[in-house]
């Protein structure tokens, strides 16, 4: 499986629809303090549904909607490429598809949707696709800002609990 791009639309400091290419191999992101680097990671956590709003540095999901835009909703999509079994047992076929998630602010409570190639799916379906692609559904592939210091400050019991999740 290959991640090809992340598309942020009215998400945090990205009021305009922005396509962020993710290349193969070792990619880095650099820029001044406060320029939106960690917001890109929050967008990845949002679309993969691996974090609470607090883990994305927001009090509520609706805080993820950009204050710089004028829409009451935000959306993030992830372009992926994976090998699927070919028709009738033939050679595997590479297919590109998109996972998406959006949130719309409503008086009666936020309206959250999950998408596969633009069509609505349930959260459980999204998590099935992730398991199929080899993504941990609890976000263990993310090391967020200051996680390293938090890990060094843990006592022995808290450190063991990190292993409990693996078992």
């Amino acid at each position, binding site marked *: *499986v*290959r*991640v090809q791009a992340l598309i942020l639309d009215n998400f945090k*400091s*990205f*009021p*305009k629809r*922005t396509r*962020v*290419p*993710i*290349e*193969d*191999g*070792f*990619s*880095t*992101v*650099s*820029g*001044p303090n*406060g*320029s*939106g*680097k*960690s*917001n*890109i*990671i929050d967008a*990845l956590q949002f679309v993969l549904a691996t974090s609470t709003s607090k883990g994305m540095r927001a009090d509520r999901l609706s805080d993820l909607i*950009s204050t*710089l835009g004028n829409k009451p909703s935000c959306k993030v999509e992830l372009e992926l490429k994976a090998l699927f079994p070919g028709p009738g047992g033939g050679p595997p076929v590479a297919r590109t598809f998109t996972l998406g998630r959006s949130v719309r602010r409503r008086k009666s409570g936020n309206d959250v949707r999950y998408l596969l190639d633009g069509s609505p799916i349930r959260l459980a379906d999204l998590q099935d696709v992730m398991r199929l*692609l*080899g*993504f*941990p559904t609890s976000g*263990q*592939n*993310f*090391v*967020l*800002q200051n*996680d*390293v*210091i938090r*890990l*060094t400050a843990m*006592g*022995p*019991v*808290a*450190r*063991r609990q*990190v*292993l*409990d999740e*693996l*078992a």
Partner: protein
Amino acid sequence: KRAAFLEAFEAVRDAFAETYAELGRGEGRLILEDPKDPFAGGLLIKVRPRGKKLSRMESMSGGEKALTALSLIFALQEVNPAPLFIFDEVDKDLDGVNTMILAEAIRRRAEERQYLVISHHRVLLERSDQTLGVTMRKGHGTQVTGVKMAAAEEPASEEAAAV
């Protein structure tokens, strides 16, 4: 439950010995406080950084602790792999040499999996395959200023110049 935990522990313990040898260039050991009943105790980390005595995590320097934690993170990721790994400024406690060692360790792993790493350190940025520059424009939000392939020399922009 206990058997499953011990299996995971042994896998991570063996992986940690290797990742610490790679990053800390010394000997690293994970030890259960209570091997008979793991859930009654915690997990101890004992390492011997290059040229030093074996010591506990508590008595190490800031950078030595960070390198030990990173070795544990790599060991966990080896036991529980994913197609894409994401690191946000994990190198900020490291000096120039250790940042270089970390960058090389990521490069090796990036042959099979994708790594997306945020950093302010030139030493790490110049060892990546490509660097995405971002800046914030007043009132317009985050602008992605372009992808620099490793071969090109100029930084993404003076504002974004790494320390």
